[in-house]
């Protein structure tokens, strides 16, 4: 079971605490990971760069970017860590009638609805102060539609990756959260600008 694997993994790490805390071992572990991540993030960067003109014209849209990136990753990590914990506890059953899955999905949808409605209002207010012209209705349409699409996407990606990691025999705590957070960050930007492109 993956819980047993966890314990063994911890013991392995404790065997050599001196190399584990050496500068070269930390740098050589993390740099390749961060480099790969940066290459992936260029996808959302390219989308931002493509929409540069609209972003500069409408500061409200620029305000949306960091929130969209952050919230997408947050929702993904909540969904994944809950599914992973339920998997470890043995209460997880991948079925739409499972009460755990239902409450995870319900919570993610509710959180997205709350955050993205507030975001629409806040970006409108701040955008106006910064000299933007986009209306409240348009911004709410953009944030709520892209937020809810994102929530559905987060649910799908998290469930599929926790299930996949379980089937492949990896502990979803180690594998899915970094992967899903980054996938959600990147697709968050893609979804946002997909909606912006349709609305504007």
């Amino acid at each position, binding site marked *: 079971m993956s819980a047993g694997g966890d314990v063994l993994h911890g013991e392995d790490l404790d065997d050599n*605490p001196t190399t584990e805390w050496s*500068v070269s071992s930390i740098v050589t572990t993390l740099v390749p990971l961060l480099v790969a991540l940066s290459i992936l993030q260029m996808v959302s*960067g390219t989308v931002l760069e493509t929409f540069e003109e609209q972003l500069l014209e409408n*500061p409200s849209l*620029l305000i949306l970017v*960091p929130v969209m990136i952050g919230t997408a990753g947050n929702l993904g990590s909540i969904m994944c860590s809950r599914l992973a914990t339920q998997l470890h506890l043995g209460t997880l059953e991948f079925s739409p009638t499972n009460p*755990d899955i239902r409450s995870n999905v319900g919570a993610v949808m509710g959180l997205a609805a709350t955050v993205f409605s507030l975001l629409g209002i806040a970006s409108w207010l701040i*955008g106006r102060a910064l000299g933007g012209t986009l209306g409240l209705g348009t911004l709410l349409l953009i944030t709520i539609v892209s937020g809810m699409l994102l929530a559905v996407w987060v649910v799908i990606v998290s469930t599929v990756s926790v299930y996949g990691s379980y089937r492949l025999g990896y502990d979803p705590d180690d594998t899915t959260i970094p992967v899903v957070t980054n996938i959600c960050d990147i697709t968050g930007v893609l979804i946002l600008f997909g909606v912006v492109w349709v609305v504007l």
Partner: protein
Amino acid sequence: MVGHDSAADVYTQALPVILISLVAGLFAGTLLGTETMREGIESVPGILLLLPAFLATRGGVYGSLGARLSSGLHQGVIDPHFEWNDRLRNAVIASFLNGMIVSIFIAVLAWGVLLALGRNGSLLELVIILTVAALLSAFAMLGVLLTVIFKGYRRGLDPDNVIGPVVTTVGDVFGVAFLLIGIAVAGVLL
């Protein structure tokens, strides 16, 4: 019952963290939307291109430093009273190096993507901006993170619960602000 939280329970537990990240994101976004920053974005091709990678990198570097120090405190291999022992020094130096190496890599990568998109970009300008931004981020993030972890730990706060919100809240705001300073420095130097 364990493992059977209702949707409302999950919602209430997660809402504070999500709202903190909303407020932090709005701060960072407001900085991005200011007149000065928009002028910077307009005058330096590639800033928007490297923005997501730059912000994600700092989350990765300082989030993992925080997690490492927090595990070290829990395991007792790091002393809860702040003093420069080898482990702490190594972890801090390593995260500084990680931040610098990856940020400069991002500058080069962004320049490459600009070329591939058929746009003009100055490699030197992007490298200067990211070096300045990464350097300032390192000082600010290390200062905040070490203070919060050690002071928090002595007051009974579990660093595992604090690092995430601190890194996201402080990180994005500092990140955007220091990019702006980097743009100004590059403007003076070039």
